[in-house]
């Protein structure tokens, strides 16, 4: 009996505790909290937007994608090689030197007589 009375008292007390707190927070508090959130959000803004990646993507698209970029890269490298490589005098370019470059040996003598080319059948 005493136990059930205690349970009733507990129940009423809990009811009273629950009913005492229906007071909404002030609007001013909500406003201050939202201002705090906006400040934190704005302070992180640069890391959220990623303009460099967007710019790179746009430029790549303009230049015809990765294939276009690769072609441009190869052309630029060839241009650089032509510009930077040691210049060769025109007189030094002979059929023998061309053969050496092309075949690794100067067997052009077989076909070359007196500064003129002759057909191999005539040798």
């Amino acid at each position, binding site marked *: 009996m005493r136990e059930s009375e205690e349970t009733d008292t*507990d129940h009423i007390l809990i009811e*009273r505790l629950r009913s005492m707190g229906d007071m*909404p*927070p*002030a609007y001013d*508090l909500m406003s201050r909290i*939202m201002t705090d*959130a*906006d400040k934190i*959000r704005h302070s992180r803004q640069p890391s959220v937007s990623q303009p460099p990646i967007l710019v790179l993507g746009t430029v790549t698209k303009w230049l015809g994608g990765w294939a276009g970029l690769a072609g441009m890269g190869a052309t630029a490298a060839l241009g650089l090689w032509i510009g930077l490589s040691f210049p060769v005098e025109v007189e030094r370019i002979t059929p023998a030197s061309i053969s050496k470059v092309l075949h690794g040996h100067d067997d052009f003598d077989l076909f070359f007589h007196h500064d003129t080319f002759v057909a191999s059948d005539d040798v």
Partner: protein
Amino acid sequence: MQSRMKNASDEDLLGYFKNGDAEASRILTFRLTPKLYMLAYRILGNSAEAEDVTQEALMKLWIRADTWERKGAKVTTWLYVVVNNLCIDRLRKRPSISIDDVSDPVSESPNAEEILQSKERERELMLALQSVPNRQRVAIILRHIEGLPNPEIASILETSTTAVESLIARGMRNLKVKLVGKKGELGFGDA
């Protein structure tokens, strides 16, 4: 998009906020502020201090959003821990509580006599609640007012479920002792 946000969990909304969504922080503010404010008010018994604690706790949440782990604890559980700790810090700085420290709660009852009666009842209850040891008080509030399950209260108070049950039982006993002689005012009848 808005209805999807309104139905989203607190954890999802925190993720949206992290990605720069202002609407997510607004929904979280409207959803969480009343809970945190009432918890702080019931622990501290002072509305101005409860507002400060609520604002501070949510500020910590906005800052924490960047490193929040989705697989971790619930946002509300984490916030209850923060509010409880902030309240403990404030209570430690206080010498003691008197009836004047308990601010008047707002009531929406239309009848003036009822308002007075209700205010007086809440004042008595709040004062009795303030006199109960802090951990017992927080356990009672979280269990009987917020309706949290004991395991969640245990994680908030960093203790075991058995210890929570004990805290609640001792707290309720202490509360009843404090309210002896005030059963009439509190509407208990003369038992």
